[in-house]
């Protein structure tokens, strides 16, 4: 076992983990944050996407020990003071989700995208989401959601009240 200290959504956790524990299993099983999903075993679907020190990563392909000392943000940590992140609001507004399983990863990946490209074109959005698979939406409304969120954020909106 190895002891790790990880900050998840701003809260510090100290846990003993088997070195083989994947970050996604640490999040889901050790600290009970089940919003991050596992959709594949070949690092492709992106359902497990979280932010590791601010960058989007596939938490199924990161060992929990690699996150020792790091800051992790999951879908559960996106709201601020009870207000939805613009991407969360936009995914609902644009019907960018159906079964909801890929959604947390899709949103986290989009957060990463907009953090370094605040005004992506449709093509850039589609390209940036190549590591996140959705089987329900055909991506049409996901792309729209990211565009809406980009506009909201450009207009200075940081968060949207949940209704």
């Amino acid at each position, binding site marked *: 076992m190895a002891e790790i200290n990880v900050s998840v959504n701003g809260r510090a956790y100290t846990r003993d983990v088997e070195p083989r524990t994947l970050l996604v299993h640490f999040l889901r099983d050790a600290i009970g944050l089940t919003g991050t999903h596992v959709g594949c075993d070949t690092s492709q679907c992106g359902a497990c996407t979280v932010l590791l020190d601010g960058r989007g990563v596939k938490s199924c392909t990161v060992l929990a020990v690699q996150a020792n000392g790091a800051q992790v943000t999951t879908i559960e940590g996106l709201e601020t003071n009870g207000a939805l992140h613009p991407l969360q609001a936009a995914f*609902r507004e644009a*019907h960018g989700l159906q079964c*909801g399983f890929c959604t947390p990863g899709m949103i986290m990946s989009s957060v990463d995208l907009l953090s370094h490209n605040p005004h992506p074109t449709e093509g850039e959005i589609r390209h940036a989401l190549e590591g996140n698979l959705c089987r329900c939406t055909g991506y049409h409304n996901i792309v729209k959601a990211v565009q809406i969120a980009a506009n909201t954020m450009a207009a200075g909106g940081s968060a949207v009240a949940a209704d």
Partner: protein
Amino acid sequence: MATTAQPGASLMGASVRRKEDPRFITGTGRYTDDLKLAGQTYAAFVRSPHANATINAIDASAALAIPGVHAVLTGEDMKKAGVNPIPPGWLHPGIKIAEYRALAVGRVAHVGNAVAVVIADSPTIARDAADAVVVDYTDHPAVADAVSALKPGAPLVHADAPGNVVFTWQLGDAAATDAAIAGAKTVVKQHLVNQRLIANAMEPRASLASYDPAADELTLYVTSQNPHVHRLIMGAFVLGIPEHKFRVIAPDVGGGFGSKIFIYPEECVVAWASKVVGRPVKWTATRSEAYLTDAHGRDHDTDVEMAFDANGKIVALRVKTVANLGAYLTLFAPAVPTYLYGTLLSGQYNIPAIHVDVTAAYTHTTPVDAYRGAGRPEATYVLERTLDVAARQLGIDPAELRRRNLIAPDAFPFQTAVALQYDSGNYEPALDKALAMVDYKGFRAQQAAARAKGKLLGIGLSSYIEACGLAPSHIVGSLGAQAGLYESGVVRIHPTGKVTVLTGSHSHGQGHETTFAQIVASELGCTIDDVEIVHGDTGRVPFGMGTYGSRSGAVGGAAIFNSLQKVKEKGRKIAAHLLEAAPEDVDFAGGNYFVKGSPSRAKGFGEVALAAYLAHNIPADMEPGLEATTFFNPGNFVFPFGTHIAAVEVDSETGQVTVQRYVAVDDFGNVINPMIVDGQLHGGIAQGTAQALWEGAQYDSNGQLLTGSLMNYAIPKAEFLPNFETDRTVTPSPVNPLGVKGAGEAGTIASTAAVANAVIDALSPFGITHLDMPLTPAKIWSAIQGAKGGN
């Protein structure tokens, strides 16, 4: 764009934002694998690496020696305990049903066939231990493709299915078809392969079972599209547990596309094992397991003959199909290549004579069953691909050839030559609208100009019809279904006027919590937030047949609608009583009962609800309470239709296809929530396009799955697809009170042929008339070279 609900206004036809989204966008959805019960253990399966093998011995000693392992259980253990094989849910005369045991006994028939299960304290220990189970096999030759399986001398999948024939099935008038073909001006012949697909719902299958000895009750959480069907079949046929001692809960389900209809070995094992080990047992599939064990779809090999008169009118259609059903029969497998396929072979067209002949084969592969569309995409592909081949051969424009053969709008109800009676339809307006949206004439001009510069553009049409709202119990019963296909809907009005709806439909992405709430809010004049939709729990919902076959709106929604009418009617009597008026003088609108002509004499729906429960002052002959149940069993299927058009560009140097535009005009009858219907369509188009261009399960001759992961089975990424352009015509269905049809599968049914036709159209300058899917760059390039007289 979504709209926000206004109380009082009718919400039918409004793009209301989804009620279920807040939990999904915040990570608080609850999927089966998210659940954790006290004392929970974990299952891992030992699976066959061989497609056809005898099991000589299973040595679990090393696995059992690993600390944290509770049990290693085998098929013999299950059989000894009295667990039965998993039965199919649809029978044909003469069908050969192979014994399908949750854990194999004596032999395995496909790679991934479960042989043993390990139950352990953690998933890692379970996996380690499963790897430590040693199984001694004798490997035998295998057969993976159905055409080979039916040849004399092919390896036998099951000793009691000679020649690997599961059943043969025919529909239509063979003699009339033969005669019409013999007398036809032109007969177009085409061989078509509709390749095997793998559904790949993003949430892998999972199950969690817990046995409570105090109540002698088993609870199973499972990724199911139809929890009551799970309870019925697992309880009554496999495990021998009566319904009142068996609760099945399907919490949030992360997509299904058919693959979560069926009763799978793993959930039977988990349910049984939880009682054996006396602890809750959870199993969650890896994606690799999903590829090997989720039921696959399609896999037809078909010869088509389409006969025409001198005017380009179809006079007959003869279809001969070999369907690969894999190693075992799962729930709907016998129905998919027969009643969901052969009956659709008239499409939108007036075809006087049709005959279809299907032979279903066992092979040493993963079972094949319903995948989004289930039979109807195969039928549409047969018709629409062949029509394009014919158009080329006859020298008639593909759009014009379709138009000439459409069933006339005044011909409904229309009896096809393959059993179905279409109740309604008006096909030409959808065709015209789609052609206008894509600017068909303009595209043809652009295409000609591009060709002159060596650029390959193509356009493809698919005018489809589908029969969905899978329901009429008397019809499906007469055709071999072992269950009815009605749906239940309970509307429970609480004393405050708030509403709980219990539905047997089960959303796994379709948004029922929203659309069903829209029906309620529109009928009762409340807001959707006043309505709670309960689904996916046999402990709360009286009964249900679940969600597949685009049936939830047309059958489940209609059941709720009818219950709402019953509730409103009872409310009217109470209101009349309170208002001292005759019931026939009381109207209901905007959430108020009022006396006709004097709207100030009114009682709000909430007041009436309270009165119903107080029962201090209700009609003397009336029971208290305000609740109604409906089991809705419509008289027919519903028949959505439309025309989809794809425009593509093919890179002649690499064979790469780019989908430039995709236009869809559909008729789903009345639409409850256009935003959700468009979403269903988008996803369906993506999956159908994927069959045309990228997806295809491949086995080698030993029955090894070569496309067993997302590394080698290409489901579409965002970049592969364009935005979709959608529009509708509206021809309400007469068979349900909502006038709705199904929209869940149409995109998949239509799009495969549209995209394939577009690619072949692009390649037509080379004289290429057909290629089998998926239309990969390698295949396209080789075909171009072949046409050029090169390689």
